[in-house]
């Protein structure tokens, strides 16, 4: 009996260790729950990418469900997801781009806003344009407030301006159906209830 215990205990410990390490092999170290989840979208006042005369604020979320997509022309994965996002926008989902550029920054060198705009038009023409409009996060402060680490990232914002879902990386059918759809349906129910009241 005692011998059996001396055999079983190290074996159990070893197996626990193996399972732990094996799980680590398949875990994604970049996958962390966003701190922004279930919080109000950070307060912002930012110009429209195409027309700096227009200023956008948190009012853009009022009364409707919105998907905020953080992106940039320099981001390869963004180009990959744009066609699918465009398809979703045709199904009636509202997309707003939170655009940021790395070259328009003293730390990275100079790039004129006209060039950024022409590049944006170019890319959206090529891969599809899901966006109602693009908010230009000039100094990337709003991205920082959102806890964005890189593009693309997508936030599902409900009709009260609260972030309900977040995804790091490209959105495809699997991600949309698995991660976003359940929350989207919940928000749609809430919206319908509020309209009745």
């Amino acid at each position, binding site marked *: 009996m005692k011998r059996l215990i001396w055999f079983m205990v190290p074996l159990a410990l070893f197996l626990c260790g193996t399972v732990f390490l094996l799980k680590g092999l398949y875990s994604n*170290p*970049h996958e*962390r*729950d966003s*701190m*922004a989840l279930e919080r109000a979208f950070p307060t912002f006042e930012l110009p429209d990418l195409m027309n700096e005369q227009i200023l956008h604020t948190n009012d853009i979320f009022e009364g409707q469900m919105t998907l905020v997509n953080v992106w940039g022309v320099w981001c390869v994965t963004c180009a990959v997801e744009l066609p699918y996002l465009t398809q979703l926008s045709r199904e009636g989902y509202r997309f707003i781009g939170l655009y940021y550029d*790395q070259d328009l*920054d003293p*730390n*990275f060198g100079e790039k004129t806003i006209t060039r950024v705009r022409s590049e944006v038009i170019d890319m959206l023409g090529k891969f599809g344009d899901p966006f109602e409009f693009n908010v230009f996060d000039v100094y*990337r*402060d709003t*991205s*920082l*407030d*959102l*806890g*964005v*680490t*890189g593009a693309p990232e997508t936030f599902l914002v409900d009709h009260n301006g609260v972030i309900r879902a977040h995804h790091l990386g490209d959105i495809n059918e699997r991600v949309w159906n698995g991660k976003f759809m359940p929350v989207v349906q919940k928000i749609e129910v809430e919206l319908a209830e509020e309209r009745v009241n």
Partner: protein
Amino acid sequence: MKNTLTFLILLLPFYVVFAQNTTAPKEDIESSDRVVPKDYAENYAFMDPDDRRVFLKLTKELRCPKCQNQNIADSDAMIAHDMRRKVYELMQEGSNEAQVIDFMKVRYGDFVHYQPPVTGATIWLWLVPIVFVIAMMTLFIYRRKPQQDTSMEDKLAQADEILNKID
């Protein structure tokens, strides 16, 4: 014992070859153009040398969320640039060290700071080594304990018993 020694001696040539293989590329790197690490803190001006020290400390303590095993002092990722700039801005606005760390934690979670807080989940980081040392020491003492010497009378009695059996 002797067998083990022979085995190790036999392994020696392999070890030497292996060691050469692993050290060889290192020299190559040193002879070729080495990337000189850039000191990003140079981009920021401080009136007070103490502020500069705090800035350097903070950027060393804050972890880049994009490039996971680098601090923001070290990283060239855009997010690290932005975070350094934010740290500087916050300091210029009069935030102290703890406030800057809290600012980052609100946005990027506890992950962003290299010093994890003690919580129900992280307490094991401190407990496991202590528990392990205690367990091993207990085991060591318990196993090492010599058989308690019984008294001379008991021994004689045992001897008698054995002798009786032989008879």
